[in-house]
């Protein structure tokens, strides 16, 4: 790609509870951290991509977050907007930023997120359920987010012969990674076993509590620049190799298939764009709102054969020291799920691994990273490929 777009800098604030900050305030907190951590002057930033706030919280959405971020930076960008595709938003931001840089429409695009995930309770539960389902033909049946994902998982288990032990192995592996991440929310809870997952209370079959992500608050920023600037900022940046996306029916009940989540289509497009094959992937970050998703995505992205993902986890191949590590930051299940900002966490980690900045959890060979994100109820998919060299 012209100008060799690359991720030059990433910052994520620790997932947790930030009672003194609203979502916009959290953006500013992310900005502070970002500017404190990296040698980047606000005046260098000429592009801002942000996402609406308040999508899942009371009070409604603010869709002009990019303007407020630019104001806070004190810049007048020549490229800016707020955009939304749920958890897939941020992989698409990086892709749009890379395209803008390749086209000469911007030199340095700041992609930023911050989110709060309200606790499921009497008031917010119904709002979230309404948001996630078809209001007329799904919502009246007692559905909410875990149920909608559970129906995909039921079908995946039946089609592949996988079991709940395979799902639980994902939770176990991700906790192992979280123990190596200083900011992982569940780090203090220690290691877990497959039996622990099975013994945690049932939420919606096949999901137990420990098959679910941890709803928290947080945010992150990713700066995408041309290769020259990225090398100056990072030394070893994470180059954008390509992306693929696919957008399917929003209503779960109307899907043609339930056992796959659309990563098959988006990853094939990403591999083609980048001119690489699945065998070249060293490390994978796979959106894991629930334990079933990384299993489905490992297979759909061509990283293991159909029905083999559970074995990949149970053999330790996804865990520290494994042959193809997955969700090396602990994932949304053990690092933390930051609501509408969650789709940023796996991009930050994918970039850190390629940049060689992942600390105690650094994977020895991390030249090429695959990041798969989804939004909605498995309806929007974006696969991002990052590498330690510019696309050929």
């Amino acid at each position, binding site marked *: 790609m012209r100008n060799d777009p690359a991720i030059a800098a990433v910052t994520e604030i620790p997932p947790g509870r930030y009672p003194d900050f609203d979502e916009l305030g959290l953006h500013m907190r992310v900005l502070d951290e970002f500017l404190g951590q990296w040698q980047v002057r606000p005046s260098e930033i000429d592009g801002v991509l942000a996402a609406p706030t308040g999508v899942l919280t009371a009070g409604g959405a603010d869709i002009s977050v990019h303007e407020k971020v630019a104001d806070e930076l004190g810049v007048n960008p020549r490229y800016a907007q707020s955009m939304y595709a749920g958890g897939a938003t941020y992989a698409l931001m990086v892709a749009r930023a890379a395209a803008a840089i390749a086209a000469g429409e911007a030199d340095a695009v700041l992609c930023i997120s911050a989110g709060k995930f309200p606790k*499921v309770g*009497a008031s917010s*539960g*119904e709002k*979230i*359920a309404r948001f996630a*389902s*078809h*209001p*007329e*033909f*799904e*919502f*009246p*049946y*007692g*559905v*909410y987010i*875990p*149920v909608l994902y*559970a*129906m*995909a*998982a*039921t*079908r995946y288990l*039946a089609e592949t012969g996988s079991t709940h032990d395979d799902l639980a192995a994902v939770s176990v592996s991700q906790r192992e990674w979280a123990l190596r991440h200083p900011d992982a929310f569940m780090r203090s809870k220690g290691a877990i076993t497959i039996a622990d997952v099975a013994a945690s*209370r*049932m*939420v*919606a*079959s*096949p*999901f137990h509590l420990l098959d679910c992500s941890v709803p928290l608050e947080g945010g992150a920023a990713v700066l995408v620049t041309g290769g020259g600037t990225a090398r100056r900022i990072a030394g070893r940046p994470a180059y954008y190799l390509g992306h693929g996306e696919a957008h399917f029916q929003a*209503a*779960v*009940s*109307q*899907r043609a298939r*339930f056992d796959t989540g659309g990563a098959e289509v988006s990853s094939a497009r990403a591999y083609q764009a980048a001119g690489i094959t699945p065998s070249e992937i060293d490390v994978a970050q796979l959106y894991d709102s629930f334990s079933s998703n990384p299993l489905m995505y490992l297979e759909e992205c061509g990283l293991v054969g159909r029905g083999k993902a559970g074995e990949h986890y149970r053999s330790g191949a996804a865990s520290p020291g494994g042959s193809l590590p997955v969700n090396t930051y602990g994932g949304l299940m053990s690092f933390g799920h930051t609501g509408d900002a969650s789709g940023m966490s796996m991009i930050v980690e994918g970039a850190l691994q390629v940049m060689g900045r992942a600390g105690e959890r650094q994977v020895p060979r991390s030249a090429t990273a695959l990041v798969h994100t989804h939004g909605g109820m498995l309806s929007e998919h974006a696969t991002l490929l990052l590498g330690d060299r510019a696309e050929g």
Partner: protein
Amino acid sequence: MADSMADDQVPGKPLPEPTAVSAPYWAAVDDGELRMQHCADCSGWTFPPSTRCRHCAAGEPHWRPVAGTGELLTWSVVHQAPYPSYGPDTPYVVAVVRLDEGPQLMANLLDADEGALAIGARVRVVFEERAPGHRVPQFVLA
């Protein structure tokens, strides 16, 4: 599993809010009949309701009764309800079924023994009254 709510009034559970386009669907359901939109041009079925056929984009597909039988595509047994009116039903089954004519619906699978749930299991529609004169379609194992 929860006891059957079919044909009993269940106060408090959400009632669908029909639109101008979907009103004929809900009017039929209130009368104890499942109707879907069928296209005279391509014979395709459209659901959720629309002003045009989702297969060939022909205008205003017409309403036609369906048999109300189909098969189970997938499900989840829900142990934690999202809102209070479903709390007493836990554990309850949320399912996606495919009607024999083709359209897919989400509903609760009532009276189902968890061990009997299987992909492809035969199901048939029943109607659950949620307010006087207002029903929603539900399914039971056939």
